[in-house]
């Protein structure tokens, strides 16, 4: 499909450009390692006081942390840069250029930016995950790994939808530059399995900001906790959120172009 090519061209241009700036790699590495250190310290402290947290063991929690970092890296590489650029362009008036192109505007504004060096977090997250799986002496079957991959993908799509809806608000409130910060704060909750949270918070983390599906559910897949029901629910919710964000995007666009109040 031509849209796949569109994404690929933008990715290639972006990555080739960022590879030039090796300093950014080291800065990113520094910050990621710092973050990892703080995270591991927190994890270690909690587990000096207990053996399990909400039914999750020490190594399982490490796996959750790994996925949290990994998913965070993916969000920061592929989703966040595009949404920030979108909101910036609404503010500067240059979004018009994206709207006069003969490609679906939502796709265009969602694929054109990448922050390649954030992939460092993906590597770090994977490493932590590996260590955790080794400690668990887990034997991952093919289905489990597949389920993990699917859960990750669905979670990512849900996060994208939420980000897009947040960014679309800038059509009405131009000065909402830090609206994505809401998500950043909420995402922190994903460091721990959502089972431990009170019902109302768990609800929010599942349906409002799908952090549960981005982190906990893939972790469930790897630790033998995932039920087909949950995975099916994830698929449904992903479709639902994608549709909702698309509708909201079009609604926002109609407002921006003066087609409605």
């Amino acid at each position, binding site marked *: 499909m031509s849209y796949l090519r569109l994404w690929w061209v933008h990715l290639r241009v972006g990555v080739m450009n960022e590879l030039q700036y090796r*300093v950014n790699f080291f*800065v990113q590495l*520094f*910050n990621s390692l*710092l*973050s990892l*250190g*703080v995270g591991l*310290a*927190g994890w270690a*402290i*909690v587990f*000096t*006081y*207990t053996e*399990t*947290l*909400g039914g999750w063991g020490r190594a399982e929690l490490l796996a959750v942390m790994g996925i949290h970092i990994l998913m965070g890296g993916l969000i920061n590489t592929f989703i966040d840069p595009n949404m920030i650029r979108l909101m910036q362009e609404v503010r500067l008036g240059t979004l018009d250029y994206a709207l006069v192109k003969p490609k679906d505007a939502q796709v265009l504004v969602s694929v054109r930016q990448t922050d390649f060096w954030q992939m460092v977090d993906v590597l770090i997250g994977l490493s932590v995950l590996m260590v955790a799986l080794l400690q668990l002496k887990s034997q991952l079957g093919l289905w489990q790994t597949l389920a993990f991959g699917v859960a990750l993908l669905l979670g990512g799509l849900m996060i994208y939808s939420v980000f897009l809806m947040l960014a679309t608000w800038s059509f009405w*409130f131009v*000065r*909402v*530059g*830090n*609206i994505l*910060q*809401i998500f*950043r*704060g*909420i995402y*922190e*909750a994903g*460091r*721990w399995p959502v089972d*431990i*949270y*009170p019902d109302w*918070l768990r609800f929010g983390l599942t349906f409002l900001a799908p952090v549960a599906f981005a982190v906990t559910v893939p972790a469930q897949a790897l630790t033998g906790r995932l039920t087909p029901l949950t995975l099916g629910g994830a698929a449904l919710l992903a479709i639902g959120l994608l549709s909702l964000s698309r509708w909201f995007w079009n609604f926002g666009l109609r407002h921006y172009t003066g087609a409605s109040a």
Partner: protein
Amino acid sequence: MKGMLDFYITQFKIELSSHFQYRFALLIRIIVLVIEPVIYLVVWTTVAEAHGGIVGGYTRGEFAAYYIAWMLVRQMTVSLGPSDVEDLIRSGELSAMLLRPVNPFHIFLASGPSAKVFTFLWLMPILAILVIVFRPTLSPALWEIATFAAALVMAYILRFVLLWAMQMAAFWITRASALTGMYFAAEFLLSGRLLPISMLPLWAQQIGNVLPFRWSFGFPLDVLLGRLTPLEVGLGFLIQVAWLLVGAFLIKVLWRAGLRRYSAVGG
């Protein structure tokens, strides 16, 4: 001195009015800052419940009190971002600020109080809801509240002064935000933000007592929760003042040296 006071008051009025326009942005920031302690509260409450209701000397209710008060302290001590000064230098905006008769330090510090008042107004109902939901055990005496307020103001100024001093490095290094990053990381673990300081391993506590992080965050918290003896409170204030002086001295030296370098290199 009167001129300085006038300046602060006028800044206050102007900023308060512009804050109404940016009410949305502030709301977002508040939501973000509320989520973090709720997470830790839930984690520790979960651990406590699995261990007979008490962990590290804190009951569930005491954890709730800790983290709800945490929100207040956090909001009131938030000041500079990781690269505020660095941005000023890089964008050249510093040159414009230097033309004004007021040191940028004061401009930044003065913009604090108005934001705090506004934040306080929004925060009160949120804290009230959280008190209802989490049922903290807290009943501070009047003098404890007063002392808390004083410690809080000191904490705000202290944190600001130290962050500003750290960011002076931006005159020499291009990525001074890395330094502030390390500061934030250490602060997160040692100041009482992640968890009450008394729950850290002993060696970490001892390090934390020497470093300024505890005194710009955890100290006012401990005062409010009544976990310190009057002697410890007095000592705490002294340490705050001591670090304040250190920070002020650093700023004085580094600012002058930094400006010299700045004008030499060309703004």
